[in-house]
């Protein structure tokens, strides 16, 4: 093992989280934690409950039960504003962009820069937007267009830029590279490594197992709303992780969760 096991207080500690929509237990008694400078990948089949779990953390959904601790202290997160106050920034799977306004307006939505007279400082916002977009997608120039006119990848870049603009301490990325080309994906990979070295904790949801092994320190696999198990990427193989995702079978290198397949004794 090249790295020491994460110690000290976790940045985020979600304990026994459950939520049901109607009869569907989308997340069922799930626990997950995240340390500073760590990337934890959240894996699972479609509909496993990954997005729902992180949406509880980002304040989009109210949990039915469970607790969230930020830096060891219980946090009350009941709406997106609360989450942002704790430094939690989210790139949603659906991107959550206001399609009819431009990139700069989206980047600063809810946190606009204002002039001394209390009016929107669009010029300053556009200047900032150019800076941060330059880091992600240097070719991007269409700052004046409503984002609906952008390509899927460009829109995704805008959503990523928005999340890194405000010095997040915890970053949630729900399939951030699904629409990106290889070069842009590589750029996001670089970005993740850079943010990680800045001490930011990252939850990364992805279906790309290679990416996950490249970027993540730990993986957490979900199945039918339950956590199958959590493992350091150095302790398990890609095949073993696939087994966790598909069969719910927890390998020896992983810490089993409530969703692990119970092997008949």
């Amino acid at each position, binding site marked *: 093992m090249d790295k020491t096991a994460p110690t000290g207080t976790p940045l985020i500690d979600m304990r026994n989280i459950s939520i049901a929509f109607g009869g569907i237990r989308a997340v069922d008694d799930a626990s997950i934690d995240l340390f500073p400078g760590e990337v934890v990948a959240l894996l699972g089949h479609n509909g496993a409950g990954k997005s729902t779990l992180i949406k509880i953390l980002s304040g989009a959904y109210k949990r039915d039960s469970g607790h969230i601790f930020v830096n060891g202290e219980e946090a009350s997160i009941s709406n997106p504003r609360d989450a942002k106050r704790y430094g939690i920034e*989210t790139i949603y799977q659906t*991107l959550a962009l*206001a399609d009819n*306004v431009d990139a700069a*307006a989206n980047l600063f939505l*809810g946190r*606009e820069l204002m002039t001394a007279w209390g009016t929107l400082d669009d010029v300053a916002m*556009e200047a900032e937007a150019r800076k941060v977009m330059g880091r992600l997608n240097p070719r991007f120039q269409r700052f004046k267009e*409503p984002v609906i006119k952008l390509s899927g990848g460009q829109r995704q870049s805008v959503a990523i830029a928005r999340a890194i603009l405000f010095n997040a301490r915890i970053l949630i990325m729900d399939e951030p590279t699904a629409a990106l080309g290889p070069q842009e994906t590589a750029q996001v990979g670089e970005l993740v490594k850079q943010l990680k070295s800045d001490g930011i904790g990252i939850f990364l949801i992805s279906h790309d197992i290679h990416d996950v092994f490249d970027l993540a320190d730990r993986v957490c696999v979900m199945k039918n709303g339950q956590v199958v198990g959590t493992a350091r990427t150095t302790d398990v193989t890609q095949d073993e992780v696939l087994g966790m995702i598909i069969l719910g079978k927890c390998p020896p290198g992983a810490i089993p969760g409530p969703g692990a397949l119970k092997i008949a004794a």
Partner: protein
Amino acid sequence: MTDTTSNPQADIARASELGVVARFLKATEIDTRMLGMIGALLLIWTGLHVISSLRLGVNPLDFDSRTFLTPRNLWNLSVQTSAVAIMACGMVLVIVMRNIDLSVGSAEGLIGMVMGFAQVHFLVRFVGLELGNPWIWVLALVIGLALGLLIGAFQGFIIAYLEVPAFIVTLGGLLVWRGAAWWVTSGQTVAPLDATFQLMGGGPAGSIGATWSWIVGIVACLAVVFALFNGRVQRKRFRFPLRPIWAETLLGVVTCAVIMGAVWLANSYPWPIGIVNRYAAANNITVPEGGLFIAHGIAIPVLMAIAVGLIMTFITNRTRFGRYVFAIGGNPEAANLAGINTRWITMKVFMIMGVLATVAASISSARQNSSTNVLGTLDELLVIAAAVIGGTSLAGGSGTIIGAMLGALLMQSLQSGMVLLGVDSPLQSIVVGAVLVIAVWLDTVYRKRV
């Protein structure tokens, strides 16, 4: 064009392929949609003018005083447009947020009735102010504004927090407020209104005269020049692409010419002879041989409409609130995830709508010097039509204040023009209805192409 910063690998390919017209539009950054509306307006005006001239058997170029393009007719048009244009500004925000307000006409009626009752009965008989006391119109207006705010807040609360669809809530409001207006005086008309209050309705007294009109025009032109200049400075500060100087100048000159032209028109419409004579007698002026020419100048309701338009444009473009209204209209879910309090914004939009209904009610009751039970009837439809013709998308997320005001002017032009031509009112309805549908269809075609 040394002004424009060059972006070598920018997405703005094909720039060289643009035609002359496209290059012109790009340089001036004029919205083609707006240009289309102005074009349509000029077309309607010219058409109505030619038809009204031909009907009288006069040469259209003589600008006979009974035709459409006369200072008198255009001045009246401006006053008639004010109330609907003011409410259309609020309707833009309502529709941008994917809501609708069917109650504005009835709210206008109720508020007009309450303000009329306040100034004629309540403040005089129960509070004990003397007739003509300058506080009467102020208090009546304050009561009206409070009521408008309350109506808006009430409907907005039900829509935003109780999640009843706006269509239903305001459909209910349409019936409730109209009924409530009847209860204020058991259906009796309240008249005459306070003399100062009446000024909001226009007329010779309710206009600011030639000198002040010129002053307003000059101030407006200076403001336009300042705004263009300031925009340039701002863009320079961050090295953003600038409009070429010629485009900047052209925009300034055209805008100022339109403003001064409008002032000139308002100043070309004289007071009626009877009023001039009475005024002369009261002020010991001897009326010269050919009569005394006293110009109306800009009407107070028109100034009110312009003020509302400017304030609402400022709110939509330059404030957080305006930005949120548009973001919510574009994607309510995203706005919510961005931490915007979407419910409170929704409620505020309806409160603004209520206040604007009060302003409109003041103008329309003052104009007819009475508050009647039918005040504002069907105005909700004109207001919605104005906003939609002005480019506000019913799907939410897009619309402009200036477009809606132009839309109101367009609708009113058609209506006044048809009255001038002696078209009977059933046919008027048919034409207005058809124009609404055609305008929205053209807009749909336009949106697909751009």
